[in-house]
């Protein structure tokens, strides 16, 4: 690649114009197809455009000309990350570190990959290395803070984030970490300040927006405690999370086997209350947020849909309870089924897009079953006529709840 073309392409990358840089690099490669540096620049331009597969090919081409070039190894790792191949990305980065152990950028990107693969302890070691090698780099400090946060080391994470901000007060990631620190401590003011600043600096940061929504909800002390529980639970190993889910049933069973109902029933009530609270907290708080201007602006469309489903089913359940109390207690079955379903539907925004459709379909089906059930009750149908739709209603609602829990 001619020197002027190299400069031009690099300046264009710096100017945030990867498409133009790609064009320069490709044209130059036509003249000199064996220029490894040009392939490297092309790979960078493609990474910046999010074109992972092509970037991988260009980076590999660059490495064919210089297999030990750490810049090309780094860009290969970034390209592989884009394609989701984190294992090969990690190998490329480790190769780069073997070539140049004092390259802070390589250590930092290794930390990023390790964080993506849930290896936060290793990630914090790599980020710490990057921090030591580049003590004036705010991004390295912020990455270290992030890794510490994922380990649950809140105080250390805060310290590292503040160090990043001392170097660059406009480091959005460091502000984001301070928001997470606030959430973990149940300090909604600190969380709000952190996420608001992170969003001011990068308004396209979706996770900061979600953090802001959580921080707004966490202004309510009960929700703050529910959230702390979830955040604590999320940091547990997978097996421990399953154990936590199953433990109440095992304990309940154990208590029942000794026939101690005086203990079992109050405990069961408390447990069910807590379950309902954890399920209902999110959609209830979303509905509350939607009553405020800021809430309406920051709550995502998906969360609105979930909250609307929750609100709609609860409203019908309450109506059925009132009518049932006044006219026919058989309608309580609709109340019960809709409440159970609402708890799941209210959290449907935590599901991948495709799986939500199952819940939406279940919502339509349950409404139809409830209409049939109500018609049978109004028509004076007997026990045998009511039992099938009632069972379908209850089992369908319970199945939906479990589906949401397991698919989240």
């Amino acid at each position: 690649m001619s020197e002027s073309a190299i400069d031009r392409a690099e300046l264009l990358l710096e100017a945030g114009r990867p498409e133009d840089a790609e064009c320069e690099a490709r044209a130059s490669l036509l003249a000199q197809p064996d220029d490894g540096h040009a392939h490297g620049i092309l790979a960078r331009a493609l990474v910046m455009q999010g074109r992972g597969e092509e970037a991988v090919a260009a980076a590999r081409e660059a490495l064919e000309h210089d297999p030990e070039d750490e810049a090309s190894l780094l860009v290969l790792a970034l390209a592989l990350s884009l394609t989701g191949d984190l294992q090969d990305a990690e190998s490329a980065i480790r190769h780069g570190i073997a070539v140049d152990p004092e390259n802070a950028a390589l250590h930092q990107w290794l930390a990023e990959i390790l964080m993506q693969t849930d290896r936060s302890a290793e990630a914090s070691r790599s980020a710490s290395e990057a921090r030591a090698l580049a003590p004036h780099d705010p991004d390295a400090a912020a990455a270290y803070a992030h890794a510490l946060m994922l380990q649950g080391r809140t105080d250390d994470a805060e310290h590292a984030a503040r160090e990043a901000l001392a170097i660059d007060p406009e480091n959005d990631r460091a502000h984001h970490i301070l928001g997470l620190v606030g959430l973990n401590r149940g300090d909604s003011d600190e969380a709000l300040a952190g996420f608001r600043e992170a969003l001011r600096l990068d308004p396209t940061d979706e996770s900061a927006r979600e953090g802001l929504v959580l921080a707004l909800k966490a202004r309510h002390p009960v929700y703050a405690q529910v959230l702390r529980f979830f955040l604590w639970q999320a940091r547990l190993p997978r097996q421990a999370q399953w154990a936590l889910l199953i433990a109440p049933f095992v304990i309940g069973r154990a208590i029942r086997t000794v026939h101690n109902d005086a203990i079992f029933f109050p405990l069961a009530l408390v447990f069910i209350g807590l379950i309902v609270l954890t399920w209902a907290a999110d959609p209830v708080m979303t509905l509350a947020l939607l009553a405020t201007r800021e809430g309406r602006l920051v709550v995502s469309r998906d969360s609105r849909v979930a909250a609307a489903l929750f609100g709609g089913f609860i409203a019908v359940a309450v109506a059925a309870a009132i009518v049932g109390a006044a006219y026919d207690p058989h309608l309580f079955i609709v109340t019960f089924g809709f409440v159970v379903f609402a708890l799941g539907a209210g959290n449907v925004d935590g599901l991948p897009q495709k799986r939500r459709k199952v819940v939406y379909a279940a919502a339509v089906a349950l409404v139809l079953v409830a209409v049939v059930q109500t018609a049978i009750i109004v028509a004076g149908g007997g026990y045998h006529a009511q039992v099938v739709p009632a069972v379908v209603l209850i089992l369908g609602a319970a199945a939906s709840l479990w589906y949401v829990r397991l698919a989240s």
Partner: protein
Amino acid sequence: MDEATLATLREALALSPDNVPLREHLAATLLEAGRAGEAETEYREALTRGAGTGAQLGLARAFFALGKLREAGVLVEALAENEPNNAGAQLLLARIVLNDGRPDEARERYTRAVQLDASLSDPDLAAALAAGEAKRERVPAHAYAGDEDEADAVETVAAERPRITFDDVGGMDEVKEEIRMKIVHPFTQPELFAAYGKAPGGGILLYGPPGCGKTHIARATAGEISATFIAVGIDEVLSMWMGESEQQLHETFERARRAAPCVLFVDEVDAIGAKRHDVRHGPMRQLVNQFLVELDGIKTANEGVLILAATNAPWAVDDALRRPGRFDRVVFIPPPDEQARVAILHLHLAERPTSEIDLESIARKTKGFSGADLAAVVDRAVEAKLRDSMQARVPLPLETRDLEAALKSARPTTAEWMQTARSYALHANEAGTYDDVLAYLERR
């Protein structure tokens, strides 16, 4: 060259695909026959099979013929660097740089090419170089006051006197009114503005989704006040004067000052005036600093120079650019409104066979479409109609339903931009920069 010869060459190549000289011969023949696209394919193939500099030059020529000037330039520049005595490369480079508006360099290259190989002499090119003509339409030198050197300097700039005015810009009444107050009236009624201590000048930053007419309205602004219009973008600054970007930016401003009254339009200003916080590279930072110096007119007053800038990413523009005296007015150019969409559709359908088309109805159905989106809809409808016409063997006129059919597979490309802008408007709306975006979103 007739088809039979080409077919024979292709047949021979099919039998020995690795015959590089034969492939180059085919490519050259195609290029000579004006089939540059096919020539490009063959030259590329030849290069992948190990062809030498002859194929590189041929490919560059094919690019040039196809109007891919950047690709042609990069390719032939590298060739000329490696082989300074390659006469063909020097000649092609002369054509490219002339097209770029650098007649001096073009003259130099052409002279060298002819010195190396007298048979390359091209009377047309020589005449163009002698007259100092560039291919782009330029303002005649006599339009400027000053000495000949100045006129010559202006000659190298892509300057023009636009004939369009605000009457040619459909809709966008608020935007036009804002620009009138800031730029047009201070020029047409200087006494009134002087009485209030307002001198003409200053800058306006136009921002909005791509393809919505920012450049068009900037050009119309120049036409409105009969001013010269000079457009500059990062490509010109970086590509044409590599290593001297700041100097070149300065010279562009100087030319605008000499050509006053002049509208200097800085396209994609987020590249030249990127946030210095995000720019770590020395040269880019220097370029931003130079831009600030020029806007302030520290060394030479910018009197009579109206600076309009456009960007799709106002959030990437350095905050310092928005300080008073620089781009102190920020104007949102939204996707065209209904009236503007009617005008755009009318423009694109002009000179095409049409029957009674209900433009208002199509405009109502294309909310959020950019000008470029509307052009694509018309294109798609025309393609479908062409197919029908070929089957029917008679030219059929475009009808409303053709456009409606084309609309079925069309989506406004402004949606993604609007989503990003919404995020900035919600979370980073210091000093109300994005109030117009919020107002637009609320109106939708």
